[in-house]
């Protein structure tokens, strides 16, 4: 019902799929932050050793990776929606969308670098 070109920069180009991805990634991120929250409840003022030990546990690292991926998907859907709501001139909108995706890719690999540097 809507011109395909206007929807191609959305994550999946399909409203239903975008919506489901947004919800799924939200749940993963929610649980992840709950785990981090739990860590800081038990260690309100951690030192380097406690923190690095926590992030060297395999499941924490894998979960962090999944959370990073979820952040990538969740933010793409969300920011794309915001941009297409408010930014109407095509070149600016396209640039903002491309820039957002670039930023999210950088965040993703930056996160991996943080997590995997002390194997």
């Amino acid at each position, binding site marked *: *019902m*809507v011109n395909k070109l*206007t*929807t191609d920069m*959305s994550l999946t*180009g*399909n*409203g*239903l799929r*975008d*919506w*489901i991805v947004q919800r799924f990634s939200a749940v993963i991120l929610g649980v992840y932050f709950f785990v981090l929250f739990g860590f800081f409840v038990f260690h309100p003022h951690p030192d380097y050793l406690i923190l690095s030990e926590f992030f060297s546990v395999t499941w924490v690292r894998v979960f962090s990776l999944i959370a990073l991926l979820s952040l990538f998907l969740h933010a793409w859907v969300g920011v794309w*929606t915001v941009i*297409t*709501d*408010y930014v109407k001139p095509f070149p600016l909108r396209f640039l903002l969308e491309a820039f957002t995706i670039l930023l999210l890719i950088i965040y993703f690999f930056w996160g991996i670098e943080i997590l995997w540097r002390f194997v």
Partner: protein
Amino acid sequence: MRFSIYRYNPETDAKPYMKDYEVDVPHDSDMMVLQALMLIKDQDETLSFRASCREGVCGSDGMNINGLNRLACLTPVSSLKAPITIRPLVNMTVIRDLVVDFTLFFQQYEKVQPYLQNHAEPPATERLQSPEERAALDGLYECILCACCTSFCPSSWWNPEKFIGPAGLLWAARFLADTRDTATEERLANLQDPFSVYRCRTIMNCTVVCPKNLNPAAAIAGIRHKMVEKGS
């Protein structure tokens, strides 16, 4: 009581302006805003607004009264704080004064094919429904297309052409819920792009302003549920 009314006549005015009127409203009066508008029209016959049934059935007199979209005929003056500010429905092209252009609104309505589709051979009498099946239409079929909701929906403000808007989507939900309609799959497939339905962020402005107390936001959620069921 003072009324401040949005005025614009494209024949004579460079741009819209607000004009004040005084109306005598007796202390315990049950006057509706529509009656007050008629009294104002007695003072100033150039004032234009739409109205017909004057009892909330025809959907002609939707307007923005003290910041909320509502039907003038169903809004008691006594429920409002003076001065009463009356503006046309939000984000719709003004034809004159409080009369707005419904073209785009009805185009969005037509997009959802708001009519029963069933290509099976019609039975000799009617296509019957059980009382439960009929009850599934309650809260969906009562829409009078006054545009109060769509005109008050931020998602429609930012994407008036691509997002169908709460009114059209309520009608989509009404035919999706109808057991006599056999076009469910096509209807759902037509609505799957990221704008038509999914621009709804459940802001619920539609539900707040609906003069028939319907819940378009919940109806839209129902459409999404049906899509998830069909799509998985």
